[in-house]
């Protein structure tokens, strides 16, 4: 491995680790509030930002951040105000964002859809040192929000009405969640690509749910899975010369399938104590394996009554 490749690989791996941490970290809140596809919508909107970057010869990472933050705020506002036509408005936002991206890229001098491809599916060779700086800064913001405000974000995502009655600034927290999701999209854009960003927000969380019993554990497992698949996918795509995004997402799905298969027996084991505890107000010290029928009354008698 010559030095150039080595430096490139270092940058790609650093970016990959940051994506592996941030995407599931914000994704878990989106999954909890059943907005799993929000990342996908932001990804579409971010395309306009990338196109704008080409057109203005600015860094696409920063223009994409600006446009996707604006798009995420707009989505959140549509969620508040547009009750009936909300989904139509969102559809227009998504496809408008995608079309805007294609239009701007082709308007840019010497631009064509080919320029867009590396942003759609991710690319290692194009991660520049300035991209890495931007990704580090944005990732630090995402980690600060998702860890620092975890109790508040958990409360809001779990039960919005109750959170309001505890005096939390629910609207501000919702907007912050949307902004953080938008920032995560641009963090992940270079490595996984805009079209597959959402998968990395959702799939590691879905996989972690198979093992985690608490929110905290699910969070930790999801981030661990996220980091493993992004590193694994980056290394694989380096040697096989395939777009890293696709490799990473397929690895994440493989992790989901494997954990689902592995966790099926414990899930069954877990269900039994819960069922045993149901009839009594207090759970007996040890969960009995079966029912103890009083000697005087047989099962047949019970059924006949």
């Amino acid at each position, binding site marked *: 491995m010559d030095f150039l490749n080595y430096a490139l690989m270092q940058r790609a791996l650093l970016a990959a680790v940051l994506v592996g941490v941030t995407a599931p970290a914000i994704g878990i809140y989106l999954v909890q509030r059943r907005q799993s596809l929000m990342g996908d919508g932001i990804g579409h909107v971010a395309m306009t930002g990338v196109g704008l970057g080409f057109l203005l010869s600015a860094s696409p990472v920063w223009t994409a951040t600006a446009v996707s933050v604006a798009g995420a705020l707009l989505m959140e506002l549509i969620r508040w105000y547009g009750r009936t036509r909300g989904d139509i408005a969102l559809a227009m936002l998504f496809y408008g964002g995608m079309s805007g991206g294609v239009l701007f890229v082709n308007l840019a001098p010497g631009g064509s859809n080919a320029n867009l491809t590396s942003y759609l599916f991710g690319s290692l060779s194009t991660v520049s040192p300035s991209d890495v700086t931007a990704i580090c800064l944005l990732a630090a913001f995402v980690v600060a929000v998702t860890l620092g405000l975890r*109790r*508040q974000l958990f409360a809001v995502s779990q039960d919005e*009405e109750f959170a309001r009655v505890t005096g939390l600034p629910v609207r501000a927290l919702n907007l912050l969640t949307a902004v953080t999701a938008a920032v995560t999209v641009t963090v992940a854009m270079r490595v996984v690509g805009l079209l597959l960003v959402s998968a990395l927000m959702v799939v590691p969380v879905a996989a972690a749910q198979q093992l985690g019993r*608490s929110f905290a554990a699910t969070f930790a497992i999801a981030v661990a899975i996220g980091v493993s698949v992004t590193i694994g996918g980056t290394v694989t795509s380096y040697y096989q010369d395939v777009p890293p995004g696709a490799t990473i997402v397929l690895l994440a799905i493989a992790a989901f399938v494997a954990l689902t298969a592995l966790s099926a027996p414990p899930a069954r084991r877990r269900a039994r104590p819960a069922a045993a505890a149901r009839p009594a107000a207090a759970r007996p010290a040890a969960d009995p394996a079966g029912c103890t029928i009083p000697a005087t009354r047989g099962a047949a008698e019970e059924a006949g009554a």
Partner: protein
Amino acid sequence: MERQDDTVVSLRGVRAELGSRPVLRGIDLAVRRGEVVALLGANGSGKSTAVRSAIGQVPVTAGEVALFGTPLGRFRDWARVGYVPQRTTTEGGVPATVTEIVSAGRLARTRFGLFRGADRAAVREALERVGMADRAKDPVTALSGGQHQRVLIARALAVEPELLIMDEPMAGVDLASQEVLAHTLREEVGRGTAVLLVLHELGPLEPLIDRAVVLRDGCVLHDGPPPRASADIPPSSPLRSSRGYPQPGHDHVHPHDASGAAPIRTGPLS
């Protein structure tokens, strides 16, 4: 007004619409410090809407709402309020333990969501008071409906509120646990907590209830003493206050007590 000082919830002439349909049509309701008020009425009579308008979750089209004498728009002191919503089946998409859920109820008493020892102790105590301490580490999805309801009550108790607002807290809770909760509520009331609760049957809570407000079609039909379960026991009798929670020396159990002695149905006829 002279009652301003000790009125913890006050609704005056409150009207509210849901989906451009009038649901509350001029409701007056007041709960004073240390008072337990039951809100009764048929399905769809507007009980939940009344309770949710009192905490600002339903926009009010006319009338005034005040908590602790402060108009709702300016009220910020949410640590004084504990809320138990009418249980919905919607749950978050991510597993969460009983402790994590109840901790969310404690947030109002923390600074920037930082939990100290006292906060963890309050969460533990709230779980003990509803008899769910042994399930603290279990995921909520592994609970039965009634157990889940008790967790939601613990979440409201964790903030150590001065006002408890509960929307059908006993729905799906078995009689033994209802009595445990009635006992818990009696302790709360003893500390001076005011309680506004939506009920369909008074059940073991009956001796605690000072006043009942009955709604019908978004109007107050009755505001006064609770409809009594057994007319032969006068309200002042010590018997009334001793019923409804476990008695150490009272081991003779009346299995039919709940359904037989509490025929307070809040159907259209009441």
